[in-house]
């Protein structure tokens, strides 16, 4: 695990990606801190940081696109997966290297509230809960990027897919207002989702019984609940979009609210996607 971690960290700084990521991130934070805190004289760093979150769209793929796809392409994964280190430890080593690079930026950003404190009163608790939330949000996005990189051999495909997924989580809030909230449409969309899931299961296992079984059980539950209590589906799609909206959980911090649930949510995303990455690699070795 340590070997992979060290290699990735060194790799990020022998290629230009590590520097590019840090420069880009720190320049953005610097720009917004300058505008909000120095020019407009806000005491809280929250607004500046909040403005940077949308740039994760570009920052995260920069760091994650090659992390697993390149190993597969160069066939160096043959070295990694035949070495006496388990897939889980390899993936965790790689992920921790990504997090460490982000952490370098966070350490520098952590100094800013103290600089601002020289010119006025800064609520340190708000400042650091914001910085921590920003870091965890970044960790969640890095985990998603890591997972996407495990799915493909091409850096470009990984970068574009990661971009789209992060964009979707950013726009989820805006989409909420656009979609109809009545139960009939919800059920319809869910029916299509069940069909797609069964289809994916069929493609993976090539088994008609699994496909049919999933469809029958899925639709039975779906329509059973619908006929039992149709109000259950009211606003269901909006709720689903809410689940994947990483950014909406960040907003509370801006207003100085401390939300442990958001931290837990981000950490869950991290665990889920690191776990999915390990599964995706193991699955590939099986098929």
């Amino acid at each position, binding site marked *: 695990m*340590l*070997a*992979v971690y*060290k*290699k990735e960290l060194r*790799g990020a700084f*022998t*290629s230009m990606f590590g520097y590019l990521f840090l420069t880009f991130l720190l320049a953005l934070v610097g720009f917004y801190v300058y505008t909000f805190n120095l020019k407009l004289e806000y005491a809280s760093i929250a607004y500046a940081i909040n403005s940077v979150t949308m740039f994760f769209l570009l920052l995260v793929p920069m760091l994650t696109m090659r992390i697993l796809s390149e190993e597969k392409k*160069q*066939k*160096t*994964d*043959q*070295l*990694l*997966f*035949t*070495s*006496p*280190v*388990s897939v889980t430890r390899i993936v965790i080593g790689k992920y921790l290297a990504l997090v460490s690079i982000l952490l370098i930026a966070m350490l520098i950003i952590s100094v800013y509230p103290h600089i601002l404190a020289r010119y006025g009163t800064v609520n340190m608790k708000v400042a650091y809960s914001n910085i921590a939330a920003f870091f965890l949000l970044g960790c969640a996005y890095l985990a998603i990027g890591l997972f996407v990189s495990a799915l493909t051999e091409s850096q470009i495909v990984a970068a574009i897919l990661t971009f789209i997924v992060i964009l979707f989580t950013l726009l989820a809030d805006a989409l909420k207002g656009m979609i109809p909230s009545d139960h009939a449409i919800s059920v319809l969309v869910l029916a299509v989702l069940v069909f797609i899931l069964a289809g994916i299961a069929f493609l993976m296992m*090539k088994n008609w019984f699994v496909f049919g079984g999933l469809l029958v059980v899925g639709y039975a539950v779906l329509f059973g609940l619908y006929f039992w209590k149709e109000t259950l589906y009211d606003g269901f799609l909006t709720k689903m979009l809410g689940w994947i909206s990483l950014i909406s959980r960040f907003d509370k911090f801006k207003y100085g609210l401390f939300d442990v649930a958001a931290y837990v949510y981000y950490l869950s995303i991290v665990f889920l996607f690191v776990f999915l990455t390990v599964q995706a690699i193991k699955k590939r*070795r*099986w*098929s």
Partner: protein
Amino acid sequence: MIEVKNLVKKYGDFTPVDDLSFIVEDGEILGFLGPNGAGKSTTMNMITGYISATSGDVYIDGHSMFDEPEEAKKCIGYLPEIPPVYPDMRVREYLNFVADLREIPAKQKAAEVDRVMGLARVDHMQKKLIKHLSKGYRQRVGLAQALVGNPKVIILDEPTVGLDPMQISWMREFIRSLAKEHTVILSSHILFEVSAICDHVLIINHGKKIVMDTPDNVIRTIGGTEGVYLAAKTTAERMNELIGSIAEVAHVRAEAAPSDGVVACSVFPTEGADIREKLFRTFADANVVLLELRTESKTLEEVFIALTGEEGTC
């Protein structure tokens, strides 16, 4: 010791490896032979734990690759078809990384890396970026990688492909020398190579074992009876007449004439008979000049084609 038990790999309807079993004893070199697409690389990838098997198991020194992969993988050094090197790393840096992966203690790391670089003869390249190395040197760095930690089992997938003749002969020597301390499996589609280096040959085709034996035995038992090639200064009719007078001749195959006025053919005797002396006397008595007379042992190549029913690619 490597024990492969009923190994099967299926991709949907396609079965690249179909119920393969064999054992390689300590200190042996097994040559793994088959036409392109016969399942050699797939089998090696399963033995080294890179991909999992649909069914069956592999035991490395008694450790099951599927139940205790970490223990089993510790005993294996693997050089895949394409050397698994990072172009942006320097040779020494890369081998240090491999040593870390294989959990070589920090104190022994430098010495171990020096040792494998010396063995693979890449020590003078240690500060170079791997992307600047030629194919032959990359292959050697890949070989050095497989030797890190001195694993008991070494698996080489087509180790001589893409090397120049000097490097090939060095690589063969080197593999031979490995056998003193290691158990080696190497795959190849170059038949001469396998018969020159290996203690045993395993021929597979379409994922199935066709034969496993020593190279000599494979040729002897499957190769059938040996023919005698002869060239004489005479006409075809005269030659057939003379050969026809020998009782032990089973059949005759005409060969291309080496030069004008010379006829050549291969004579196959009935089982077990040695007809060389009789041929000589017959021709001498008839006062026909024999220019050449030699037994023709079948090459592994011919055996291979006969066994697999396909052209071997050399």
